[in-house]
């Protein structure tokens, strides 16, 4: 019986009069990668920020393993240190070097001593291939490098789950590959991941589960082969067809 | 008598002072424009000599306190035989001070006009004078409105310094009243409120003006 890392039930979220999430429920098992796809503006990013309570849901419950994230008594900062988040625009701390960016969570949040924090940070930076850039500043790096640093920053906290919010959408085309490679390696190493993305090649190759969202609801859900080859819902077919034209799918 | 009664009582006298305050502000801003625009043009288009003179003027005035400038005009000039009345000294002091700041605002506005536009003007045959007159200045006036509005409000507030050289504006009136009824604190609360009202009204007017004259899209 696989261990359920993340469970969301009936998530509702409204912005003013606009209802962005209308009853989303899903679960993610340990070691699995779930990719969420769908047209822009359908609440995919909002769903991610609901999970780590950056934008708390209006209704519904979310559990991280056995702890209910949405419970008012839960220490949200503690939960967040167990959930990693990688943003579309990287959001690296511009005044800190690469090493400090990765290290600061360990020092300030987890209160780990400096020498151990440095060791962990160096390890993660090497894992993403940036061991030689530890003293550089974010503005001196390319987009792809910055995003890899931000993955290292999330990894250093030893999270149970990492959320990726369109991690490659702000990158120049030739830099997308290096980030997707890191993410693929991560998935293969057994990290539990929820990824919002348009990268169909990645989704097809790496995802254990694909969720298609539109207009705030889950239209269809299933394994990649099922979704890409014989999806049940005409909307899914239509969307996948359009997006594969735009972004390129996996070559047969 | 209580505070409100006091306020009602002294308001007429204070208003006399407020009139002087407003006059000083208006005259000073005009002097500022008259001296400020040529100075700005001198710093942008002038040759080395013109540029140096204008910059010298701007840096010295902006680098020294308004109060010292007023003191120099009112207490200092008599040493060389020039006696100015408090109002005149205040007028020139505030005006010249404002000119230096306005010169910088105008300069900023001129320099924010994209070079491409000047190139376009030259390429249809305009000379520098024509370009300045038809392309640069009209835009400069509209681009400078936000900073200029700020300057007008600063002038309204800093006109209070004229009190220090005995000009009969609202602060002096307040002091005069207080010297008779010894309720200095309350009198100046009322003065403060009058300034609050004047500044708010002026701000509102400038807001409306700004919205009317803004270049669309910028």
């Amino acid at each position, binding site marked *: 019986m696989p261990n359920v890392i993340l469970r969301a039930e009936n998530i509702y979220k409204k912005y003013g009069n606009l209802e962005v999430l209308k009853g989303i429920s899903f679960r993610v098992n340990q070691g699995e990668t779930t990719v969420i796809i769908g047209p822009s503006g359908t609440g995919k990013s909002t769903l991610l920020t609901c999970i*780590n309570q*950056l934008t708390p849901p209006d209704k519904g419950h979310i559990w991280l393993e056995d702890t209910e994230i949405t419970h008012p008594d839960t220490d949200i*900062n503690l939960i*967040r*240190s*167990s959930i990693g*988040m990688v*943003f579309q625009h990287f*959001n690296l*701390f*511009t*005044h800190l070097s690469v090493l400090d960016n990765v290290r*600061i*969570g360990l020092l*300030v*949040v987890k209160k780990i001593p400096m020498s151990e924090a440095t060791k962990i940070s160096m390890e993660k930076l090497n894992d993403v291939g940036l061991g030689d850039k530890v003293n550089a500043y974010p*503005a*001196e790096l390319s987009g792809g490098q910055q995003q890899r640093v931000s993955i290292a*920053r999330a990894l250093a*906290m030893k999270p149970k789950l990492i959320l990726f919010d369109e991690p490659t959408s702000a990158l120049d085309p030739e830099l997308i590959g290096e980030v997707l490679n890191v993410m693929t390696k991560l998935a293969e190493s057994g990290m539990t991941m929820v990824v919002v993305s348009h990268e169909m090649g990645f989704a097809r190759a790496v995802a254990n589960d694909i969720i298609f969202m539109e207009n705030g609801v889950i239209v269809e859900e299933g394994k990649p082969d099922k979704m890409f080859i014989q999806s049940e819902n005409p909307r899914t077919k239509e969307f996948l067809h359009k997006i594969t034209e735009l972004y390129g799918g996996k070559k047969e | 008598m209580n505070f409100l009664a006091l306020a009602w009582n002294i308001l007429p006298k204070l208003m006399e002072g407020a009139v002087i305050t407003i006059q000083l502000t208006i005259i000073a801003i005009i002097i500022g424009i008259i001296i400020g625009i040529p100075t700005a043009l001198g710093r942008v288009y002038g040759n080395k000599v013109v540029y140096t003179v204008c910059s010298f003027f701007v840096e*010295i005035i*902006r*680098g*020294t*306190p*308004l*109060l*010292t400038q007023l*003191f*120099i005009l009112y*207490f*200092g000039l008599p*040493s*060389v035989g020039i006696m100015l009345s408090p109002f005149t000294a205040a007028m020139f002091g505030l005006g010249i001070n404002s000119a230096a700041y306005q010169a910088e605002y105008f300069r900023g506005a001129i320099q924010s006009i994209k070079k491409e536009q000047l190139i376009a003007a030259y390429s249809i045959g305009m000379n520098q004078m024509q370009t300045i007159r038809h392309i640069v200045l009209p835009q400069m006036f509209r681009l400078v409105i*936000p900073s200029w*509005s*700020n300057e007008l*409000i*600063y002038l309204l*507030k*800093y*006109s*209070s*310094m004229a009190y*220090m050289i005995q000009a009969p504006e609202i*602060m002096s009136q307040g002091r005069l009243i207080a010297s008779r009824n010894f309720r*200095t*604190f309350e009198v*100046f*609360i009322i*003065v*403060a409120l009058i*300034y*609050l009202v004047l500044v*708010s009204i002026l*701000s*509102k007017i*400038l*807001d409306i003006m*700004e919205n009317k004259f803004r270049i669309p899209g910028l």
Partner: protein
Amino acid sequence: MEQINIIWQGLPSLLSGTVTTIILTIYFLGLGFVMGIILALGRVYGSRIINYIIIRPFERFFRAVPALVLLFLFYFGSSFFNLNFSPFVAAILAMGLRSAAYQSEIFRGAIQSIGDGQMKAARSIGMNMFQSIRYIILPQALRLSIPPWANEYAVVLKDTSLAYAVGVTELLRQGRYIVARTFGNALLVYTFCALIYFILVFIGNQILKKLEKKYKIPGHEIQAPKQQSVLERI
């Protein structure tokens, strides 16, 4: 020649006045800095109630009322409320709080131009509000604030001359004493005072420029907020 002698003999007093001016500047800017950061944080992260009932009225009052009036209010208010603090303290309170109102705008602009992505990232690794502000937001905001803050420094330094009006013996008042004592050439004395102010402003600006260079974050500048109403800008 006699005139220059007057200045020469007056140098000790002018020096003492200059020192007072510098001390006043430090106090004004210091109080303004501490209060300014608190107000700015309140503006950006505080509740609506705190903002509309305390912070905005405070800023509006201290920015719309002229410095001279504020000085008088604190000076005469001290005896009105039986608090009896010295002119020196009255000046510090009046001008310090006034500077706070202006500095809070500087810091607010800096914090808001950092963008909410930084705060989101900090919270997402588990930092609480206090940690996020202390380690991520403020370090960046302070660096961005240096250029406009240099402007505030110049304004405050020059405005210390207003303390004259409540009897504080700063540079300008010392100049006045010299003129009165010696029937000296007022033009010369006050021009000399102006020169000293100019030098102080210049030196301060140079120091701040060096500071700015040292702590510059590449690729970052404060973005002026678009379309503010006049009352919000003054």
